[in-house]
């Protein structure tokens, strides 16, 4: 996956569960779970919201990693 994230680490550190975090971001718990597993790359809007709620920057939470095969 070229986009890696630390949403779960930041979320658990902040003591927020997936259900509550989803409510704060405005998406479902299932979507939060998909983002944390790397199955879904959120839109810029959702990424910004996540960073804001976790009191950090988008670059800290999401990291673009060059794919060596490309």
């Amino acid at each position, binding site marked *: 996956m070229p986009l890696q994230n630390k949403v779960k680490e930041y979320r658990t550190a902040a003591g927020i569960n997936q259900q509550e975090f989803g409510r704060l971001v405005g998406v479902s718990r299932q*979507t939060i779970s998909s983002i944390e597993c790397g199955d879904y790359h*959120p839109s810029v809007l959702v990424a910004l919201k996540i960073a804001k709620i976790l009191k950090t920057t988008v670059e800290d939470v999401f990291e673009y990693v060059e794919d060596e095969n490309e």
Partner: protein
Amino acid sequence: MNNRKKSFYRYMIITAISAFIGGAGGFIAMISRHLNWNFGWILKLLPTIICTLLLSTLLIIMVLTILKYFKAKKLVNLSNDEDEEIYLLADKELSMVSSLNAVGSVLGMVMMGLVIPMMSYWERNDSSLMGTYSIVLGMTTVIIFIIYIIASTCLQVKTVDLIKKIYPEKKGYALEKKFETVWLESADENEKRIIGEASYYSYRLTQKVLSYVMVVALFIGMFQPDSYVFVILIGIGWLTQTISYLKKVRDLEFKKK
């Protein structure tokens, strides 16, 4: 040989084989009419066989759906905000309940479509064991279908309520007229992406299946000239699917709501 050439040759071979099968089918159909071959009995017997299989499948689906629903209900009641695993299991079970319910409803409608012509044929033409079996099967099917539809509707309402319990942001009541629209509006971007990808997959697959079904209908038409109605019905379904998909794509591309 590069991929482009390979694909071209494969396409040409498939076209040649299809043309040969079509030609051979037409030729056999012509001969069969001259020799008075009658394939009518196969078409008359098929509804009874298919109906027996569909009824058994529907009963299995009905039992499975109920079992899955109670399993999902148990998991939803057990779920709490701290245990993400139980949520995942409940999601899977609820998804299975909805899928089984949807498949069962379609099977039920197909079954009902076969029952009426099957019963009227055997009632008019045959009082043999096969005829009696078909009439009893037909009546049983109608009763089971009515029970299934009522049970399926109740389960759908209950399943939607369960989903709303673990996804409080979801909106809509399963029996309201605009349920699908309201449900989609309450979906987030990931759910809308999943719906979009699944719809496109379904569109591509249905296009392929409908083309094969149309070929089968054309073949049936060769042997049973009065069965042209199949071609019309499949054509209506195919056109509706193609036009509705393309229209929606154009509307979305050019921002028309």
